Structure formats: C-alpha cells, structure tokens
C-alpha cells in the first residue's frame, strides 16, 4: 500500500490559512480558478491545479443578518462573496454593522480568527 506524503486540497487550504494566506486553485491549461479546493476542476475533470494567492478583492453577491440573542453573541452577518477571480464563497463581512452590508458592496479579504480558527473574512473597501 502506498502512502501519499502531500496534503489533500482541503488540508492544504487550511494549512495555508494557518500561515495567514488565502490561497485558491488555478487550472494550468484553462487558467480557470477553482474554489472550494478540489482534486480536479469540477465539471471538466481537468487536473493540474496550482495554488495561487487570491487577490482578496470581492463583491457581496448576497447577504443576510442572522438574528441572534445578545447573550448568545448578538446578530452577525453571513454573506456570499464573488471573488475577483470568479469563484463564490461564503464568509462574513466584519468591521461593520451586519445590517450595513449591502449587495454589490466591494470588499477585501483577510485571514483572521473566527472562534479560534483561521478563516477568510471580508471588510468593506
């Protein structure tokens, strides 16, 4: 039985996050960007995915405020962000009132702790 030394895409993504880096995949041949991390491009099967640093630029595609009791931490934002590279991801827009987050808002990514784990969060530009 063989043993593969390299991390799978999910573990690699999280390892990059632990280093403070937001990395996404890009297909060698088509140049297509892929998120979330996969072993091959979804729908085409193209392999040869390189890790590249995301530009961090994004636009809010949709947003909601999860209403939450103050004693449970209060209201918070959940948003879908369209990355400049094409893929969409779920995240939170922070450093702003959750109700102030609007569709179409330009945002920038940063890696920061959420509940003790490094995650990609966004702030308004």
């Amino acid at each position, binding site marked *: 039985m063989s043993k593969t030394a390299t991390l799978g895409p999910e573990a690699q993504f999280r390892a990059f996050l632990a280093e403070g880096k937001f990395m996404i995949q890009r297909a060698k041949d088509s140049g297509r960007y892929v998120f*979330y991390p996969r072993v091959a491009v979804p729908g085409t099967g193209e392999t040869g995915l390189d890790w590249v640093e995301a530009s961090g630029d994004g636009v809010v*595609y*949709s947003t909601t*405020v*999860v*209403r939450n009791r103050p004693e449970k931490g209060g209201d918070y934002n*959940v948003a*879908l962000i369209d990355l400049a590279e094409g893929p969409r991801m*779920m995240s939170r827009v922070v450093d702003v009132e959750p109700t102030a987050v609007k*569709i179409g808002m330009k945002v920038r990514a940063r890696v920061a702790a959420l509940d003790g784990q490094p995650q990609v969060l966004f702030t308004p530009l």
Partner: protein
Amino acid sequence: MSKSLRGTAACVGVGMVGCGEAPGRSAMELLAESVHIALAEAGLNIADVDGVFAATAVHSMPAMSVAEYLGVRPRFSNGSNIGGSSFQAHALNAALALEAGLCDVAVIAYGSNQRSAGGFTSISEPMPYEAAFKPRNPITAYALAAARHMHEFGTTRTHMAEVAVAARQWANLNPDAFARGPLSIDDVLNARIINDPLGKLDCCLVTDGGAAMVMTRADRAKDRPKAPVYLLGAAMAHHHRMISCMPALTVSAAVDSGPRAFEMAGVARKDIDLLMLYDAFTINTILFLEDLGFCAKGEGGPFVSGGRIAPGGPLPVNTSGGGLSCVHPGMYGLYTMIEAVTQIRGEAGARQVKNAKVALAHGNGGVLSSQVTSIWGSEATL
C-alpha cells in the same frame, strides 16, 4: 429517447397521521400508521407490499428500518435522501421499478415527531466550507436567495407576505391544517425577523406528522377501491449541495426538472389545474412559479399578489395550506403529492378545486438544492 413512463403507474392509496402535533409517538410509529391507512384505502395488505421507498430526518438507512418495522421483505427498495424532494424522486423510482416488474406494490413513506421531540432536526453533516460562518441553515440559505431576488427584481417583503397569506387562506379551508385563523400582510411583515429579509411567518411550520402513498402498475390500479391517480410525468435535477455553490441564487434547478416533467407528461402549463410547490419559505413559491414557467423570471412577486394564488384566484397554489400553514414535519415533499391526489379524486372538501384533473407537485430539498417535479392526472387524462 427514453421510454416514457407516462401513466404506467398510479397512486391507489394515501395516508396521513399526526398532522401537526402528535406527542408521545415516534417518527417510525407515525410513518407506519400512515402506511396502514394508505394500504387500507388501496384495499391492500402489508403482505402485498414488495417495494419500500422511504426517507426521514432520523434514519440513516430508512429503507431497512421501515421494511423491518412493517415486516416487509422488499424485492426492491430505495432509501435515498435528497432532502424534502426525496418522495417525488421515490415516486419516479417506484414507477421505474413497477414498470420493470421489480416490484408490484410500492409504498412511499415518511414520519417525523420533531415538534414534540423538541424542534427542527437534521441529520445533515456540517458543510465543509460554510459551517465556520455559522449559517443557521436552512433559513440562512433561503434568506440569501430572497435578498438576491429582491435586489435583482425589486421583489418586496410584501410580495413574499402575499404567499404566506394565500397559504393561510387555503389552510382555513382545510380541517387538517395545523395553522388556521386570520393572517394579514401586516402580521407577516411585523413578525420577528429571523434572518433578514425573512421573518417568522415567512418560514414553514415545525410540526410532527407521518405520510404514506401506495403505488401500483396501471393494470393493477383499476380494481382498487379509490379512483387511481396516475403519475403522468416526473423528473429531477440538482446542481449544488451548499448554497455558496448554487450557480445563481434566483434560478433553481426547477428550470431543468420542470420542462423534463412536462415533456414526459405530455401536458402544457395551461392544463395544470393546481400546483403544489414546496413552500419551506415564502420565497420558494415565487421562485418555483418562475422556474416552472408560470410567470417570467423576476415577475413572481407581482404575480402572486392580489390573491392570484389564493382561494378564488385564477391559479390555485398550495391548496392544503402548504408547508407554511398546513404541515411541515421537516421533509414535506410527500404531502404535496398527497394533496395533488386528494384534489384529483375530488375529495378536498371546502378547498376542492373544481374539475381538478391534472396537478403538479413539486419537491425541493436541501438549500434550494434538489428539485423534483411530478405531474399527476386522473384516468381521463391518460
């Protein structure tokens, strides 16, 4: 070209129990009681059943659990779970298995005691690239879809409230509906916001309930006590599991399942006498009316306004009261088919749609993920 399943199988019995609150009973007990009611309607016995189709939110291997509980040794079973639309998919799979002779009497079954057991339950795993942000799914996902629909098309919370009010008006005609009584647009708008823009009354009920349907081949359906209701067409489609992977939040996979189901059924939209659209949230009804082609994309909000889909309106939608006001034990899809059958049989009482011959029952699962459209018709439509 696939061989058409149109009219090859029929529903010959339906059963429901504990529609609303059923304290002291397990999900399986509610499911099994429903099966026995449906079999009695069909003039059949549990010993006749050789096909089992089931999904619940509490059983990881539901086909085995259900067959064991009922004492059935199925020749064919299917316990696949694609959320609330599983049962439309089971009807399609049952029709395939019946046509192929792999079984002769198919039971489709569901049960849940979530309300009495303490609230909404799910056996869903955490979504790997979403869970960290704590979406309160499923509602967060539907709120994101509603927000996007409002942004792109000018849909308003009042439009969505129209859906809830129409559903309640239908429920007020249905003695089995759990939420009855007056409901105004303002009541819906003023209800506590759960996930913007969705308030409490934009969300489906959290109830208990068991439901079952018996299907046989058309040749065996005619000599049953109740008039058979034929599966004219059914089709499925799904594009994503996580809401962040839905290609466009304003377009569900019903744009694919709908045309395929219509093609198999050989009917046009104008032939549909009533629609049962899985209304887990008010935005669903608007989305599915658009995606199934009953109005143009983006026009669903104005389309549902002015009582168009309410009792007395030109397009009866969710005539039982739907997931919003009749029953929603967690996976509601089977109830849409049971109401379609009830209406086509002419047994819907005060909410009966006149001369209902063809009904569309559309299931939705996950976070606007799986879409399965089924179209049912009376013998006259064959």
